[in-house]
């Protein structure tokens, strides 16, 4: 994507659980902010299979697992590592400034 994306403040870094996820809605867009292995990631908070918030799932091996049917999504690419999901979920760039997490969302 060539469009310039603007970072918006998502949440306080302290609100993101260690090896866990925080579900947010930013500008009407559901976003899961995930902390894994000391790094912070952001991805769409809706499973690409059914309407399930990924932020309610568990984090392991740099994936977030959808609790309903067990598809895991890579935190870096959004790609599912197994069925039933076949489509990736969007991932968003993250930057951390001070104590806050900023996420760049696509211009709608």
């Amino acid at each position, binding site marked *: 994507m060539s469009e310039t994306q603007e970072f918006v403040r998502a949440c306080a870094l302290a609100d993101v659980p260690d090896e866990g996820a925080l579900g947010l809605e930013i500008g009407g867009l559901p976003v899961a902010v995930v902390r894994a292995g000391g790094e912070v990631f952001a991805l769409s908070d809706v499973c690409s299979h059914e*309407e*399930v918030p990924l932020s309610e799932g568990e984090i392991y091996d740099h994936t977030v697992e959808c609790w309903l049917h067990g598809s895991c999504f890579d935190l870096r690419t959004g790609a599912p590592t197994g069925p039933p999901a076949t489509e990736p979920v969007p991932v968003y760039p993250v930057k951390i400034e001070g104590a806050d997490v900023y996420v760049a969302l696509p211009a709608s």
Partner: protein
Amino acid sequence: MTAVQGAVEATAPVSRLHAHQAEFGVPTGREEQWRFTPLRRLRGLHSADVTRGAKVTVGISVAPGVTAELAQRGDPRHRTAFEPGDRVSAQAFNSYEEATVVTVPRDTEVTTPTVITVRGDDSSGAAFGHTVIRAGENARGVVVVDHQGSATYADNLEIVVGDGAALTLVSLQDWAGDAVHLSHHQASLGRDARLQHAVVSLGGDLVRIAPSVRYAGPGGDAELLGVYFADAGQHLEHRLFVDHAQPDCRSRVDYKGALQGASAHTVWIGDVLIRPEATGTDTYERNRNLLLTDGARADSVPNLEILTGEVVGAGHASASGRLEDHHLFYLMARGIPMEEARRLVIRGFFGELIARIAVPDLRDRIAAAVEAELAKTTTAGAAA
């Protein structure tokens, strides 16, 4: 549980899908009835924190011989047996201010369609509606409900077809791109009554129509047709339920849809219940989905619950797929260019169903709307 209670319960369906409830909880999205619907796009229609106060404009072009009136909420002349089908339906039923009541009097035959136009001008607030369509004993009538414009709209449509009557009802969802519309259509068919019910869903951001049929006497015949065309980002959902609780009734469900563009999503749920007392039932339901591009998704779930074996027929069929290569090959081998061949096949796919809608004026309009959608495919194809 006593034996007597057990005996009564034996006539109840095993599934709880259609259990009528006094109160519906706010759906979470995990319920069977809601699991395909993106609740975040309902603009609160399913919850208490909905922004009320918006209006849709209802206009009626009444055919000679038919009566139409507006009834205030609580008008005793229009006491109703309507039972809300889900949370949104209940909210609409508790919130509407004025019901539109169209009556085809008994023993009257009217071939001119009565057209109810529901137009929205603003989708920022929610509007609620209620419509009652009655065909008296041995009446013949045609009613069209035409939805246009922008709205966040939840409504219920009650259809009462009297003994020996025949009614054709077409509901067009020709909304602008930002509309959200959820509707329950509840039909009751008297003895030997006939209903042709057709749903055409083309516009809107999210449209969810739930037609249901109940038989109040034996010999009823319901034909439920549907045509839908989903473009990128659209969610079009149709949930049908035919409740065979009377002997010797017939039902036919036939829905066809096409999808194109990223995140175009259609859902078709076709439920038929044949209760133990419904001997001699003849039912068949069919759904076909044509996926014209990558990135579109069609969910199709036919369910049939049969509690008596004494039926004439009970079946269902569902298929979702892309255009058949050999259909295109056949046409292209005869010198027809690819795009034209695609259009011909899709035109044929819908044409067979559109031709069965018993309102000639509408058939041309629906066919033209499908053509307009197909023109978009070509443009999309050229851009790709």
